[in-house]
């Protein structure tokens, strides 16, 4: 009964490959996010979707393409992987519609290693 889940938890791949990370939430939230945590542990927002619509895109290379098939899912597809993409990627969700329930709940993270 995990609230926010991500698959896979670890991903090791070669430079130039295309890969996807999946995220699902069962909290009934309407907003989902992707964050990137670099090697220095710094966390930064990448994307945000509300009701399947993109609302935040923070200067992320267009090799990164989020896809939201429904409110409970927000997948991250990365084309032509580069060494600098190695990081931990966190999915999160919150309820924008419910007043005062804007706390974001995070998934377990996916550690991506590009060789």
């Amino acid at each position, binding site marked *: 009964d995990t609230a926010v889940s991500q698959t896979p938890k670890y991903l090791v791949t070669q430079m130039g490959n295309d890969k996807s990370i999946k995220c699902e939430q069962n909290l009934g939230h309407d*907003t989902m*996010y992707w*964050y990137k945590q670099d090697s*220095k*542990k*710094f*966390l*930064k*927002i990448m994307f*945000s979707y*509300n009701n399947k619509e993109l*609302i*935040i895109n*923070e200067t992320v290379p267009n090799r990164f393409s989020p896809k939201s098939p429904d409110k409970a899912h927000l997948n991250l597809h990365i084309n032509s992987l580069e060494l600098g993409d190695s990081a*931990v990627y*966190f999915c*999160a969700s*919150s309820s*924008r519609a419910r007043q*005062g329930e*804007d*706390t*974001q*709940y*995070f998934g*377990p*993270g996916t*550690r991506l290693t590009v060789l």
Partner: protein
Amino acid sequence: AQTVTQSQPEMSVQEAETVTLSCTYDTSENNYYLFWYKQPPSRQMILVIRQEAYKQQNATENRFSVNFQKAAKSFSLKISDSQLGDTAMYFCAFTLNRDDKIIFGKGTRLHILP
């Protein structure tokens, strides 16, 4: 633009002691939310405590409490009776009511020593 600053990269305290983690932020907005998240070695991001800017009363959650000083733009976290399981990275975070993104500080690595 909003910023969050954590001035203590790393701290160590003995088990059962009280420790305070500092956080300052900068914003020109009046309504916002502040959070402390904990990231243990398991990597999971866990919400520790949450504070609405319009509330004067400091938030508390069991052994965790905050000292929210709105005028000074300060939001420190106090951990009482610290436990070994409190060992983790602690992130101070900020979000606006009308904007969903969370802005994180760089984190404080806290070690609780036996």
